[in-house]
């Protein structure tokens, strides 16, 4: 699964044009545009309630946008349920970890293959050849992934019994097991201590180097964003207020105003 030499092509992984989402009178996301090229590590930051998670929810198909268009790998995703979007190659993790706590770690990885199982109810009951073939294949792949992520020793453990940092890691591993082209990380460092944050930075960097995946992350820990992302977009009240390299963002007056208020300048 891990590839050392990653080949990346040049069509955008995701293209968002004029994305707008209104909840009643509130405009959560206003005319959001982005074009992510493959092989980029991009950040999305903004103060609390800026609409970052709403953008992710729109991309992954939980909400249908009021206006605008999302193209994943050139295909519009309007009307797609989240599992369809995942099938197109967009995986995500959640701000609050959402693992299946009463299933083993191995099963957590295996069920994430659900869309690609290629057999149905009757095959599962009659244990057809196809069923056996696919189950062994899936188990092998899942074990391989756990091995790569150094989670193999927890394979039969329940996620709820794992340390928080390991649960994060498992959630990212589970997202990667769907073979995404784009990985959305929603505040991966939330709730981690400074030691775990360093591990996380190393993990994301390692994933970026070894998997053929572009990463788009929301994060509040500035050190994580500044260290990892090559390009950052800042939104506030649903509107894009700045974008650029970490250096540009750090000194951008609009960003400083959004985070610290007017008086500082």
């Amino acid at each position, binding site marked *: 699964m891990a590839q050392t030499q990653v080949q990346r092509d040049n069509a955008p992984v995701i293209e968002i044009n004029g994305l707008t989402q209104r909840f009643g009178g509130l405009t959560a996301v206003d005319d959001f545009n982005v074009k992510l090229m493959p092989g980029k590590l991009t950040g999305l930051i903004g103060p609390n309630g800026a609409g970052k998670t709403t953008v992710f929810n729109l991309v*992954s198909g*939980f909400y249908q946008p009021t206006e605008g268009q999302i193209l994943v790998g050139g295909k519009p995703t309007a009307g797609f*349920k*989240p*599992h369809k979007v*995942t*099938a197109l190659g967009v*995986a*995500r993790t*959640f701000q609050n970890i*959402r*693992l*299946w*706590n*009463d*299933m083993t770690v191995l*099963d957590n990885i*295996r*069920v*994430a*293959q*659900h*869309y*690609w*199982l290629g*057999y*149905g*109810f009757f*095959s*599962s*009951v*009659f*244990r057809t050849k196809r*069923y056996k073939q696919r*189950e062994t294949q*899936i188990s092998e792949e899942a074990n391989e992934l756990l091995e790569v992520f150094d989670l193999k020793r927890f394979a039969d453990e329940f996620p709820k019994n794992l340390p928080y940092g390991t649960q994060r890691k498992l959630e990212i591993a*589970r*997202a990667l097991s*769907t073979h995404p082209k784009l990985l959305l990380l929603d505040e991966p460092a939330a709730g981690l201590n400074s030691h775990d944050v360093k591990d996380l930075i190393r993990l994301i960097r390692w994933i970026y180097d070894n998997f053929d995946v572009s990463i788009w992350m929301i994060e509040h820990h500035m050190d994580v964003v500044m260290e990892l992302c090559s390009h950052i977009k800042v939104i506030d009240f649903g509107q894009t207020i700045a974008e650029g390299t970490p250096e540009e963002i750090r000194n951008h007056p609009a960003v400083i105003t959004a985070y610290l208020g007017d008086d500082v300048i």
Partner: protein
Amino acid sequence: MKKYSLNMLLVVFAIGLLFAAHFGIIDGYIQIVVMTIGINIMMSTSLNLVNGNMGEFTCGHAAFMCIGAYISSILSVFCFGTKFGEPLLPAASVLIVFPIILLIGGAVAAVSSLLVSVPSFKTRDDYLAIISIAVNYMIISAIENLDFVGGSRGFQGMKDTTWAMIDIFDGPWMLFWVINFTIFTVWVIRRFISSTYGKGVNAISQDEVAAEIMSVNTNKIKIINFMVAAGLAGCAGGLYAHIIGYVNPQSFNILKSTEALVMVYLGGMGSLSGAVISAVIFTGLLEVLRSQAIIDGLLSPVTFMFPDWEPSAGVIKWVMIPLMLIIVMQFRPEGIMGNRELGDVFPKLKRFYRFK
């Protein structure tokens, strides 16, 4: 050896039961109790699929049993009975046609489960419970108003089918079918739920949002899961109708659904072996407490103090069973088995059998 030990045990047990019934070692009453246990196992394990494994809360499971019972009864009367005119099929074909009739009843019940599964896309918990009760009432009153099947007077004539079987060979046929279908039910559920495909059901129960984002087509899995559960309940209904030889819509009302619900919660949510064990215990208890002598014995300390009071078994039974439920829920709210299987509770058993 380990692979087949459970199957062999089951076959020996089934053949033993059938022989005992055929040669009159166990009488008709015990046979009826055994058949009721089988039907209750089918009901509790299939409901467990929805309420336990998928974590939805439905309490109208008897509606699907009702549909299965009526559809298979009507087909059976058309094929072998004289109620609607000449039988369509020769009586000799009954042994092949009867299981097909039961499966068709199950299939129709499975399709009717869409009445609950489609609303379950958007609703959960209490609201879905209300919908399922409504469906239960809807189906019962629909049948009560169909004069074609006797309305509220009920429907009979299925005994012709059982007699046709007895004409071929004089044996305990219904016991045979109940044993087969009970094993079939547990087998189907076990295989479905232990495949990665079926684990999608558990994923929905534990975190539906995560399931959807991790590529599980939650709506489709919900439909399939409801269909399997309702279909198996439909088969149970068909068997029930043919054992009694008479069906009445009111025997599938909310009380019947509650019975299934009680068995699931007694056994433990999401535990297949728990559902089987609790169905056996619950049905057994219902029968045992029917005996006036046992009730008198149990209550002798109380009647000793109040000599004027003469409790009747029929009343006291429905005091004792709910009381027992309250006690179980108080001290073991997760049910007899929790969400574990027999092999998890007694790991040593795993050395002797493999269950799949």
